[in-house]
């Protein structure tokens, strides 16, 4: 709606005000905010943009998959099992129960993405809250919170994820809970160090002197200044989370059959690697593409925000 208005205004002003071409172009550039600059730098990074486009495309396919799959992803035929890639009916072949791979990969994207992204999102909220409170309040609160976090750092993340979901039992919900527990300490530690870094700044003192409560300062001054770095760090975790979530399903600890999920598909197709290796490797390729795209996008975002690690 803004375009015609602008054009009309320019036409009206044309005679009186200086023509648009005479205005210093720098004046417009300088008006971009911080996030505007980040966005501008990001779109000029071909690798990050390609990665972002791939992620977006896969997300769109995942959302639309129930309506756009070429075949029923659950219906199989034992007579047409393990068809090769490039088959006339099954474009990406068929799986060990004769179900269409392309359709299953499309529908599988839903659960795989959901299980990869959700733990990081929840951990982002919980972890940054813990980190900000620990970093801002300091003292005993910090000691207790951060020493508890240290205990979880004593477990390699894959081991922690598998131990927790192994104890809780298989299932989507348990897998998400376990992965969240893996990422909360990592995000909390980053948030704590970023918060500690800014808590002695003048603007925090100014807010405190103006009578703002600790909660308000944390919500407004602290959160606003630490959320960027924490966010970038968290986007870098999505790739790990995707690999781990599918890994849990691969072990039989996540999604249960016959629900399509890339890790689980990879597991059930393991028996077929001698018969039809290309088809067997496809779900893993999907995980790899999403994981590397998230990594490259996160790297681009980081350099666009000029955050050094």
């Amino acid at each position, binding site marked *: 709606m803004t375009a015609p208005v602008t054009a009309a205004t320019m036409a009206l002003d044309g005679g009186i005000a200086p023509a648009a071409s005479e205005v210093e172009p720098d004046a417009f550039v300088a008006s971009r905010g911080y996030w505007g600059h980040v966005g501008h730098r990001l779109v000029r990074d071909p690798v990050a943009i390609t990665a972002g486009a791939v992620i977006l495309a896969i997300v769109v396919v995942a959302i639309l998959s129930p309506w756009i799959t070429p075949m029923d992803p659950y219906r199989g035929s034992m007579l047409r099992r393990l068809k090769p890639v490039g088959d006339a009916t099954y474009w990406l072949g068929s799986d060990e129960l004769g179900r269409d791979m392309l359709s299953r990969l499309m529908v599988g994207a839903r659960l795989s993405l959901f299980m990869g992204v959700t733990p990081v999102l929840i951990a982002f909220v919980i972890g940054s809250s813990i980190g900000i409170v620990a970093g801002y309040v300091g003292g005993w609160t910090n000691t207790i919170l951060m*020493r508890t976090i240290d*205990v979880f750092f004593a*477990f*390699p993340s894959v081991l922690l994820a*598998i131990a927790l979901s192994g104890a809780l039992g298989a299932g989507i919900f348990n897998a998400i809970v376990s992965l969240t527990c893996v990422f909360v300490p990592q995000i909390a530690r980053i948030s704590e160090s970023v918060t500690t870094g800014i808590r002695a700044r003048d603007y925090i003192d100014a807010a405190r002197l103006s009578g703002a409560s600790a909660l308000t300062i944390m919500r407004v001054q602290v959160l606003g200044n630490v959320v960027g770095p924490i966010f970038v760090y968290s986007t870098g975790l999505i*790739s790990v989370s995707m690999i781990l979530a599918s890994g849990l399903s691969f072990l039989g600890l996540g999604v249960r059959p016959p629900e399509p999920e890339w890790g689980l598909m990879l597991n059930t197709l393991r028996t077929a690697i001698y018969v039809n290796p290309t088809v067997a*490797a496809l779900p*893993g390729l999907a995980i790899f593409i999403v994981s590397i795209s998230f990594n490259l996008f996160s*790297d681009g975002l980081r350099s666009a925000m000029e955050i050094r690690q």
Partner: protein
Amino acid sequence: MLLYILKRLVAVTPVAFGVSLVCFLLVHLAPGDPLSAILPADATQATIDEMRAAYGFDKPLPVQYAIWLWHVLHGDLGVSIATGRPVLGEVTRAVVNSLILASVATLIGFTFGTLFGFVAGYHRNSILDRVASAISVFGVSVPHYWLGMVMVIVFSANLGWLPPTGAGPDGSGNWRPDFEHLRFIILPAVTMSVIPMGIIARTVRALVADILAQDFVEALRAKGLDEVGVFKHVVRNAAPTALAIMGLQLGYLLGGSILIETVFAWPGTGFLLNAAIFQRDLPLLQGSILVLAMFFVALNLLVDVMQTALDPRIERA
């Protein structure tokens, strides 16, 4: 130095206790009775109670923790519910196999990671640098269990060069350093090495570039030292951090080997964990996780102390 080691030991004690508490609570997080795996479906309440008392599951939690911890401190990790054998023995055998695999993988990853890192750090923004960065992004993004499958497809199914699974020709549970066994470790070790390779390459590249940009390198060249001499100085400066990363990666690989061990049926801790989870053998699960986590804690401590010893600039004691 000794004081520093003591200080670190004191600092690590509460973490170790925390770890033991988490491992203990894992069993009680689990839904259902820990004994349900061995009790017959038609067991009477009397039998169930008797078994619960025999395994000590009838006592209050803090008491159970105290008893368990006391036993653990005396090297008793309990008895596997599924096999009836002591957990410690099972875990030790598996840890040795895992450690061999993880060490070989770390060694491969470290060798190539440093190589790529040095080349990239010396020739920043060149084609070689881009290739090295691509390799490191690949290393951290690839689902290693899938890479393992691809390796099996290429080198076992298609080319038939290497065995796809197991640790030895006899199908036995122990790896030995001879030629026949060596063929079995190649695929899992190479697959596993990709993760530390990427991380080490990335770290070393940044380190080398940082060191080369420092004034002392300029000074060394100005006084007429040849490139080999300068290179020695760069290595000396990069070594503490690179070795520390290597140590940590070994810990991560040891703890995270379950997926790769499952793909290659490697008889290590991953394999043991897998069995413990699916047979709901909770003492075994608890014991394996405790040993692995404690190993990781000890390794961290060792890396920290080693780094301090190697790098005179770090004065923490």
